[in-house]
């Protein structure tokens, strides 16, 4: 599952996941019927509108061994919210389909560490990097130190601690526009902590959070770029990044 945001805005992240997983010997497919996990509707309160989107999801991903996504938030939505949407629909068939797809959905680092059993993915990235654990990876999925273990095994990479790392960046989906002022206040503090690390690159497992923090860093001409974890893990000695 590439996710709708990555599909439209960050295709490089999806491509990195494909490259990384193929390098690790996984048979990767992108079912073209997929669209979105329905989280934008669910989290804004539009449950009826989420029903056809969840239906599209279960149809698109039926029959695969594992559904892997480079987003803690979307994985969290599939695992924790699809059941509620299916219940709302009153369609027992959809509830059964969701019961089949939800547990087979993994955030990328869970799939790498738990299913493939690797932390050294053969990556090379010679930069000073700081990691922001996004809220849904951290608290909804409980990915724990999996991203950190993967980053520590990247050759050339210097990982520096982010102060107040576990505090939300203020993105929050539609919160970012419904409560734009509060969102920006939270993001400004996060961007300040990122700058304090002296890192060249801020890495996270969710491009939507990175779009928010990165947008503030860019507007502030902070000289720090943001990258999805998948893109760092996909990088090898041959890349001129």
């Amino acid at each position, binding site marked *: 599952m*590439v996710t*709708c*945001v*990555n*599909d*439209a*805005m*960050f*295709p*490089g992240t*999806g491509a990195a996941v*494909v*490259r990384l997983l193929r390098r690790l010997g996984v048979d*990767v497919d*992108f*079912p*073209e*019927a997929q*669209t*979105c996990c*329905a989280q*934008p509707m*669910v*989290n*804004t*309160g*539009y449950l009826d*509108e*989420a029903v*056809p*989107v969840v239906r*599209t999801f279960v149809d*698109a991903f039926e029959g695969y061994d594992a559904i892997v996504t480079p987003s803690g938030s979307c994985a969290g939505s599939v695992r924790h*919210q699809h059941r509620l949407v299916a219940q709302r629909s009153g369609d027992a068939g959809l509830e059964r389909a969701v019961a089949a797809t939800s547990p087979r959905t993994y955030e990328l680092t869970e799939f790498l560490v738990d299913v493939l059993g690797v932390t050294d993915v053969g990556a090379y990235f010679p930069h000073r990097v700081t990691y922001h654990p996004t*809220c*849904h990876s951290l*608290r*909804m999925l409980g990915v724990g130190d999996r991203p950190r273990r993967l980053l520590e095994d990247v050759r050339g990479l210097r990982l520096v601690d982010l102060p107040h790392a576990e*505090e*939300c960046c*203020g*993105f929050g*989906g*539609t*919160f970012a*526009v*419904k*409560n*734009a*002022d509060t969102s*920006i206040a*939270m993001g400004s*503090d996060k961007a300040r902590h990122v700058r304090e690390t002296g890192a060249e690159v801020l890495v996270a497992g969710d491009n939507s959070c990175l*779009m*928010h923090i*990165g*947008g*503030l860093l*860019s*507007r502030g001409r902070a000289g720090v770029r943001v990258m999805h974890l998948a893109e760092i893990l996909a990088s090898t000695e041959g890349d001129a990044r």
Partner: protein
Amino acid sequence: MTHTFVGMPPFPTAARAALADTQLRHNLAHATATIRGKRARVVDEVENWEELRLAGAAVKDRALRGLDEHLVQLEESLTARGATVHWARDADEANQVVIEVAQRHGVDEVVKVKSMVTQEIGLNEALQAEGIAAWETDLAELIVQLGGDLPSHILVPAIHRNRAEIRDIFRRRMGEVGRAAPADLTDEPAVLAAAARAHLREKFLRARMAVSGANFAVADTGTLVVVESEGNGRMCLTLPEVLVSVVGIEKVVPSWAELDPLLRLLPRSSTGERMNPYTSTWSGVTPGDGPQEVHVVLLDNGRTRALADDVGRQALRCIRCSACLNVCPVYERVGGHAYGSVYPGPIGAILNPLLKGTGDPQTDSLPYASTLCGACFEACPVLIDIPEVLVHLRSKVVDGHREDRVPKPEAVAMKSAAWTFSRGGRLRLAERLTGVGVGVGRRLGASRWTSARDLPKAPPESFRAWWRRTDGRLDP
């Protein structure tokens, strides 16, 4: 002076004003960081904290499942021990009980133990309207009352004030309502506390009637429990002749033994202490000792409405510890006033709509006052899944507008997104037609995004276009 939250603007508007107050931001960041650190230390040292949370949640769930029976038992136990029990459906009924007791005794003032429920029902204002002064005796509540201010935190209602501001309030206002602050008052905490002590002592010794809430109401023994730090509550509970306690019906705990996990969870979660300095318990009237006339007002005021909500009812487990406020990144930045209620922060964002019902613009804005980051759920001692309830309440807000003749732009956008997202082919077409990124940007509300944030450069093609072109074999 009457200060209430009535007529507050919706959260985003109130938050905008609060965010501009740099002194407030500084006071809150400092205070919440301090209390977060204290809590984390004393929670970490409890080995079985997770089991304790489960036990606390189980006690409250048991109480709520059998609420009808436990309340009747509570009434019987209290009555048998000499208390008078009153039932109040709403704020007006509860306030009327307190007013009538005060009038019967001919008092023109009452001293008050810090209580959330009497703030919820606007008791001070109701008493004032009858010419009865209500003196707050909790130090922070005193600061709020003297400052003509509103509480902004459940546990530390004056958290938005620093000590220099408190000194100014004491200097300016104490003399108008009782013993004045000394002329040489400094902003040293001990000096400020001594001034409050001298000011309040006069009121404790003079007052003939006290009003309290209760942290817990034990059904089998008919015991009310107040947990506090200062001892001022105990002054109110023991010195006056008449005591009226207003108790929300969700405060009932079936048995004395079941207080155990709750009394262990509360101080560590709220003040970050292993044990609170004062735990007062009383069961009706004890002849010759303490108040000789004891009233208990059992208050609904929306609690049965919340109980009827199968997702939201878990909010009634709340023991008002404030841990969720102290860890909330939204609360830390905007403070409590922006929530427009005596119950601010994450718990307020769910409790207010549950108690009052959805449909009012201010109340309806509260479930959206969160990024759903989940820090509140992680900190809650009774395992209230606040993000789950927030999302549930958002759906109630949306459902409340489904019959609108003119749908909101957001509803139109969500419907069209749902249509587009229902078929992979539709999304592919939409991405081609609108230009990748532009459509997403527009759906996000581009101007509110770009006021302070750059948007990433739109990619030349979408992932699905790249996949179709290359089967994922070449770099995009």
